């Protein structure tokens, strides 16, 4: 059954659909499920969402950096008070504050 994918052969595309939580896996927390999918990589594309399931991801608050100006300001404050910097991306331009 297309929706009931526990193990995927390298050629089988398993669609992760909203309704496709197979009964046997219903008890697994989704995070663990995703981690297993990544760890047990056998070319199986279990991660992701169908194009029509990208509705929530399109929301402003779901962007990885939804408030870039705030992030820049925060990063600048922490850069001037702490010993680490960066990680996320680089704000353009340094300052003499560390």
């Amino acid at each position, binding site marked *: 059954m297309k929706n009931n994918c526990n193990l995927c052969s390298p050629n089988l595309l398993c669609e*992760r659909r*909203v309704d496709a939580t197979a009964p046997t896996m219903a008890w697994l927390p*989704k*995070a663990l499920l*995703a981690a297993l999918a990544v760890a047990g990589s056998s070319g199986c*594309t279990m*991660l*992701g*969402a*169908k*194009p029509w*399931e*990208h*509705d*929530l*991801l399109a*929301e402003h*608050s*779901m*962007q*990885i950096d939804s*408030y*870039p*100006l*705030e992030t*820049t*300001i925060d990063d600048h*404050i*922490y850069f001037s*008070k*702490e*010993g*680490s*910097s*960066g*990680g*996320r*991306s*680089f704000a*353009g*331009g*340094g*300052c*003499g*504050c*560390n």
Partner: protein
Amino acid sequence: MQLKAKTGTTTPGVRRALAAAAAGLLASGHAKAQDAPVEQPSTTIDSALLFYHEVNRVQAIEPEVNVSHKIDEDSTFIFGIAADSLTGATPLGAVPSTLPQTYVRPYKVIPLGTPVTVTSASGGSTVVIIPPPTGAKTQTLGASTTVPPNTYPLDRGFYDQRVAAHLGWEQALTQTLKLDGGVAYSKEHDYRSESVHVGLSQDFNAHNTTVSAAVNYESNLSFPIGGTPAPLTVMNADWKGPDASLHEVDAVVGITQVMSRRWLATLSYSYSDAHGYQTDPYKIVSVVDPVSGQPTEQLYESRPDLRRKQSLFFDNKIHLPSDVIAASMRAYKDDWGIKSVTADLRYRWQMGPDYYLEPHLRYYSQGAAAFFHYYLVSGEAIPEYASADTRLAKFHAQTYGLKFGMPVDETSEVNVRIEYYDQHGNGSPAGAIGQLQQQNLFPDLKAFTLLFGFTYAF
């Protein structure tokens, strides 16, 4: 009641016409949240005003504006400016003492013979005239500060004004490949920075996976008031050395993955390599008497010329039925010996269709740089590098914040954020000598942030 099915025989048009009409009515996609279709805005103005206040230390005000304009479907032009004004007091790096301490630094150079009328410089320091060497044509004025006993030494004359600007461009090369680049410039009264960056990102798996890489090159120049002091020399009011430069290259690679309809995750690794002057030209390290712990002299600090940093960053956005969780972690280490972890959690509580409330928690913990010393001991060998800047010390910090946001219309938002930052280090390190045992060598840093944001898209 009897249910009797009735079916017809011949076909006249009402049913068919109705079926077609109903299909037509329902085909038009009106089932969306708003009645009128919202045109995607092509220009977004993002603005913010920051008020920053450290208890007994630095205060800052910073306005910032970013404009992003979509020229067409594939290209976006970005422009931004920021200005900040800082005043207040900042730690000198020296240790407190049971005796009053005086610190003097170069203030101004004037031609010999000019009458000196000003008696005080910024931060309540006193102007002192330094006797010029014979034959000199100019003389130096110094600024002298006295710190009372048992007080953590701060430079009260700290001030800085900075203006920064950046320009950027984003270009979609194909449906899945995007190029972006930009330049930035920042100038303060004693520092200048210029940088350029370029990045590439590629989507896979029907935009479920994005792999990206970017490189940044930064060139900085430091021209401190009073000149650049020679490392680990005695603090005095003599005019110091010339401008000093710093060059840094950073690279970031990342992968962003749609984990499910509700969960977006990103993992990135960054590496950076800095060559050049990285010392703080205003900060000092105290040399103390090995028995009494009293400071005997103050030396300018010295940091290595080379710094290689690495960090691993993991960020998540999770959409619950109406709320959103943002959780991230960062692990950092560099070859100065600093290691740190950062954990950041935000919960966006969508109160109704419009406004939201977002509490925020951040935890940060860092280990000390290898050359960090609370103080040096007289008689012992002076190390090659030494700094008493507590920003390089071992400490942990928590941030507690709350943000409130409200949409102005479909594409614009106004928000306000208040945060409290509490940095705590070890003010009584083991092995402290003499009078230093009763001093707080690392007072807590507490700061409040008030940030107003306004995003307007049209």
